[in-house]
């Protein structure tokens, strides 16, 4: 199995340890769900892999072996650009010519064709995350880092976004940082729980059909969700 990214080390916030001797290898073409309560350093691990500023002291090594695309809870849409220009933002920032035909196909894939010329202010929270998803796909990078991208959405929109993302990000290496056990149970090909004690692999609710999220109401998924929550509470 090829490796998509690897991080090993420990981190401190000031003098307080944030996490202790973490060792995580992301396998290519697989969804790794990094689950944990708020404040244990999940996002820090993602940002370290992305090479972003974290504000913590990190000793160790973090490296993505594949080119990276990022999608976060804050959709980070540019307010003065319409949906299509937001999707092609990366091309503009790299000084490349934007492939608008491909952008339009991706906008159609996330179901926003009739909104392509709208400014983000006119979109709902769910629609904004769909634009962010299209923008992430436009980057066309093998490794996609998702930093709680659906956690600000209502349950119904979130479930829809999980299905959409599972389909559109098929065959990519994905690191999904989440604090939602249900989300991890639906999407993970591998679920890793991060607590102050470190990282622990968690049992899966059976294999996932590629390109699909597991049904939210399947008994195994619900059992895994409950088990994950139990471990989060125990930690």
């Amino acid at each position, binding site marked *: 199995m090829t490796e998509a990214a690897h991080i090993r080390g420990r981190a401190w916030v000031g003098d307080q340890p944030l996490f202790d001797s973490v060792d995580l290898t992301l396998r290519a073409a697989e969804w790794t769900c990094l689950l944990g309560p708020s404040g244990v350093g999940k996002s820090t691990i993602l940002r370290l892999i*992305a090479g972003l500023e974290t504000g913590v002291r990190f000793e160790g090594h973090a490296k993505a072996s594949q080119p*990276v695309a*990022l999608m976060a809870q*804050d959709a*980070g849409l540019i*307010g*003065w650009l319409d949906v299509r220009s937001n999707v092609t*933002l990366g091309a503009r*920032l790299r000084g490349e010519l934007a492939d608008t035909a491909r952008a339009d196909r991706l906008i159609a894939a996330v179901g926003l064709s009739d909104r392509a010329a709208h*400014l983000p202010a006119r979109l709902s929270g769910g629609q904004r995350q769909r634009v962010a998803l299209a923008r992430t796909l436009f980057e066309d990078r093998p490794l996609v880092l998702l930093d709680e991208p659906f956690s600000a959405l209502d349950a119904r929109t979130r479930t829809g976004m999980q299905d959409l993302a599972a389909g559109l990000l098929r065959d990519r290496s994905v690191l999904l940082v989440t604090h939602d056990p249900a989300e991890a149970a639906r999407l993970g090909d591998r679920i890793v729980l991060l607590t102050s004690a470190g990282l622990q692999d968690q049992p899966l609710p059976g294999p996932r059909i590629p390109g699909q999220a597991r049904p939210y109401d399947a008994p195994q998924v619900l059992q895994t969700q409950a088990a994950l929550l139990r471990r989060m509470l125990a930690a």
Partner: protein
Amino acid sequence: MRTILMTCLLALTLWQGLLWLTGMPPFLLPSPRAVLDALWLNRAEIAHAALFTGTEVLAGFAIGSTLGASLAVLMAASRRVTGVLHPLLTFSQTIPIFALAPILTLWLGYGMAPKIAMTVLIVFFPVASAFLDGLLRTPQAALDLAQVMGASRWRVMRHLRIPAALPGLATGLRLAAVYAPIGAVIGEWVGGARGLGALMIHANGRMKTDLVFAALLVLSVLTISFAKTVALVLRRLLARYGG
């Protein structure tokens, strides 16, 4: 429009009332009527002076804004530049502009140049500081994305930081538009024979208070129209950027 009319009416009433109550002589406080007469009698001279002052204001505003905005971008682009320039910028604002006027006249002569320079000095600071403030507040989410997308520093500046800071720039420009005429008029007070400032100083010396007030009135109208126009143009141009 109605509020403006009401305000004018109230000001005129207070003014006339003050005259009736105190019985001040016209050479100290002329009546509204006397000011209007002075305005009409000296209309050619006042119009000429207003044109002169207006030119200085426009030129000073254009040059000062360009300088201020460029300086802000430069400072936002490099911490080292900011380290050197920021104290200098603050220091420049501790010098009273009145103290500089005679020196500028000495250096640049009695023409338009020292007045434009004064206006530039007054304009560039609010523009630079408001714009810089905006440039340093680009949303972190957008900057993170740009970094992961592999954007160069210059492209981040051009495509994200500058557009995101345009509302800040607009605030600076609106402020600067109000202050710009002050620079020009101070310059005219200190040296030279043309413009509304010079007209006021000369009229004051000859105790022609009604003419001073007439010139002042024109200056106010000029300033308000300029500031309103700048605000309107900015609102049209920057609607998309949340300005």
